[in-house]
């Protein structure tokens, strides 16, 4: 088989492609843009609604328990972590969406690898593994203590609270830790995939 034989065969593909009209291409672009905007808005709206809901709950319960200092500290901590999580979530989403595809494949892979590596191996990369279970315990405590109508310390001293903490907390911590770990593992697999491709571009493998 001649070398340019392959190119001749491939060229025959040109006659088999059904070209789309400009109107069809415009429709494709418009529907994709709408899909992306709707997805963006729904993510933003859900995050904001959840965040505002948590903050409203924290404000109301804190006002009703303004004499209980430990309860207030617990709620303020939840509030700060919730706002930080919302902001960092938006920031990560923005970074992912601003993926610049108009560069050589090798450069693009390097940018993606660096971005993912920063998130997975950077200074605060493991923070959310512990932050999610920690936040879970604080929220459970906040709800439990509020509906017991007693001060924070007194509630924690009751037998049922101790049993609930001993049984419930480890299960909740395990589930939230497991969930966070699974996401992390998935991201690591993506990173490995990109590194593998980069290795092949550089002809190292």
């Amino acid at each position, binding site marked *: *088989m001649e*070398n340019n034989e*392959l*190119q001749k*065969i*491939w060229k*025959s*593909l*040109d006659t*088999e*492609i*059904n*070209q*789309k*009209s*400009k109107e069809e*291409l*415009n429709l*494709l*672009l418009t*529907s*994709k*843009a709408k899909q*992306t905007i709707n997805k963006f808005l729904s993510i933003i709206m859900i995050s904001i609604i959840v965040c505002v809901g948590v903050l409203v709950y924290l404000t109301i319960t804190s006002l009703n328990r303004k004499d209980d200092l430990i309860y207030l500290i617990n709620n303020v901590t939840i509030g700060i972590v919730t706002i930080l999580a919302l902001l960092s979530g938006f920031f990560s989403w923005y970074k992912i969406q601003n*993926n*610049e*595809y*108009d*560069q*050589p*494949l*090798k*450069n*693009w892979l390097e940018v*993606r690898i660096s971005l993912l590596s920063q998130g997975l191996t950077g200074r605060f990369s493991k923070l959310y593994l512990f932050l999610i279970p920690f936040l879970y315990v604080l929220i459970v405590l906040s709800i439990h203590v509020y509906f017991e109508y007693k001060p924070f310390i007194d509630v924690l001293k009751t037998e049922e609270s101790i049993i609930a903490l001993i049984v419930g907390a480890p299960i909740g911590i395990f589930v939230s830790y497991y969930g966070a770990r699974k996401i992390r593992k998935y991201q690591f697999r*993506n990173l490995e*995939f990109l590194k593998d*491709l980069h290795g*092949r*571009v*550089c*002809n190292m493998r």
Partner: protein
Amino acid sequence: MKRLNMKSTKEEFLEILSNYQGILYKVSLIYFKNASDRGDNFQEIVYQLWKSFPKLQNKNSIGSWVYAVSINTSISRIKRVSRIEYRETLPEVPDTSNIIDEISKNESLELLLNAIYNLDDIDKSIMLLYLDEKSYDEIAEIIGISKSNVGVRINRAKEFLKQNIKN
């Protein structure tokens, strides 16, 4: 005035897209076997091209820009699609996106395409550019590797394709 500019920009973009859509078809074809995945990928590339269109400075290298965005977008989708395919065991969706409905009638092309599917993801792009008669310089620019490396990889992949087609 701004709206008018936007409109003319979009018209210019659609004009370019219309002229270069063959690239989008071919890149989607070599990376995705399933017609519906190809259709989704085609649409995603159109969107990514539109997003990066304002940054397109050199109107003389539109082809390279279309190839780069198409290849990078497709590669970023391979892993996601393969994960979905692994989970779903649904039968293949019939080709309704009119991408290439006559391909099975062209036996040589089908053989070549099947051989391309067996190449690794990077060599697929390099061979696509080679088969589309791009120069080594252009291929090196789009992939981001040296010209000599392009030559070595093309020779290796060509041999692989020939062997595959023969068998």
